[in-house]
């Protein structure tokens, strides 16, 4: 079962992810971190996740810093990291891309948006 690390400070968003994944019958080993510090603690241990879903604005250590540490660490550098964005944060997206983000996933607000998220997550866990 593919392991996904979800790094997200907002509890509602984490609950939505869990709910949507289970509703779509996506079987993954979902690990959750509430900020960058927790994320790095989890990544310090094996097994490494197939995909990291990373929020940018978090207390303590933010997503930019986490991404930078991942890319600078030989063991973690190859991780597939997708940035979770609320839309309309172009400057953030440019910054994250420059730091080596593999892709962006817009957190959906309206109807139906979650379907695409699931498809993309499944594709990025690529077996």
């Amino acid at each position, binding site marked *: 079962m593919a392991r996904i690390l979800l790094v997200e400070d*907002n509890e*509602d*968003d984490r*609950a*939505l992810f869990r*709910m*949507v994944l289970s*509703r779509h019958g996506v079987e993954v080993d979902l690990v959750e971190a509430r900020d960058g510090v927790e994320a790095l603690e989890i990544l310090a241990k094996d097994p490494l996740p197939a995909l990291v879903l990373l929020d940018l*604005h978090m207390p303590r250590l933010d997503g930019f810093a986490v991404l930078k540490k991942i890319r600078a660490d030989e063991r973690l550098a190859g991780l597939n990291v997708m940035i979770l964005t*609320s*839309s*309309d*944060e172009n*400057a*953030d997206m440019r910054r994250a891309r420059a730091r080596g983000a593999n892709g962006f996933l817009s*957190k*959906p*607000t*309206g*109807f139906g948006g*979650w379907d695409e998220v699931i498809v993309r997550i499944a594709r990025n866990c690529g077996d």
Partner: protein
Amino acid sequence: MPAIGTLPPNTALRLLDEVHEHVIVYRFDDPEDALSLRVMWANREVSPSGVDVPSLIGRRLVEVLPDLAETTVPYAYLACVQNQERIELPELHYQGRVFLVTAVPLEGSWVAGLIRDITASRSTEEHMQARVTQATEELRRTNAELEAFASSVSHDLRAPLRALSGFSQYLAETQHGLDDEGRYLMTRIQGGATRMNALIDALLRLSRIQRHEMARRSVDLAAQMRELIAALEEQEPERTVRVDLPESIRVEADPELSRIVVTNLLRNAWKFTRGTPRARINVTLKDGLVRIKDNGVGFDPEYAEQLWKPFARLHSDDTFDGLGIGLAIVLRIVRRHGGHIEASGAPGRGATFAFRLNPESQDGANPAG
């Protein structure tokens, strides 16, 4: 130019004393030697640099003020005498003050210096410059704050919205004991969340216009309009709207922003002619003024001011959709270009929007509007 009129006897010299300029008359002992400049006469204006001018009379300038020999001043006076022409010297910085010096040839090897102390006005200018720099810095900071605000709005306001729409969707779909009315209410909640999300988007678009770095280039607005009309026709193939456009509308504008202007104005014309039997949109260009006229529902001119306010609308949601942000964005873009826009219309008789993206003075002598 000779002086005009008549003076009482012996008043000319007295008048010179009242002038707020130093007037010093020199004579060259040797008309080939710049340093032989001798002070012969001075008016009463006291030198602000602390030089006691009367004590200079009869002495060589470079003897009493030796550091002047290092400047171009004596040589400029010499050139003035030799060429018998008036010379404006470059700004002279001397003993912490700033002077403007004009050399005026008199007779033979005689020359007059008209010396104006501009230290005070110069420091005012520097003060103004500092103020401008400070204001620019404040503006930059405000923009950065605005950007941070926009980002935080986008991030923080959307999170609860996601929860609202996501969980209610889940509730409606899994039918946790909801009857038909319960599901209907859930749909209304989701509609509200969706609309609020769209409003946040619109607010951010509006703030982005202000932050956009403008780069003027030559743009063909007609080409931008044709692209949009083609897209609208593709979206709504069932509609027939007759659109008349000039061959080309060349303006100096930021292409990205000008596209937003024509998009919003033409979309409005397209939208508000929806119920019109023979819908028409007519675009004309005259004296730099672009006029977009439609024969749609129009508006009551009494409420025309409302058109430009963000989120203010003149039609109810169920007649025409929209957030009421388009024209507020258009107005901002036009203002950022130093241009002008106005709307005219009447209920049931169409609307006309006329705009220019350049300040009027650049568009010739016949500005409309």
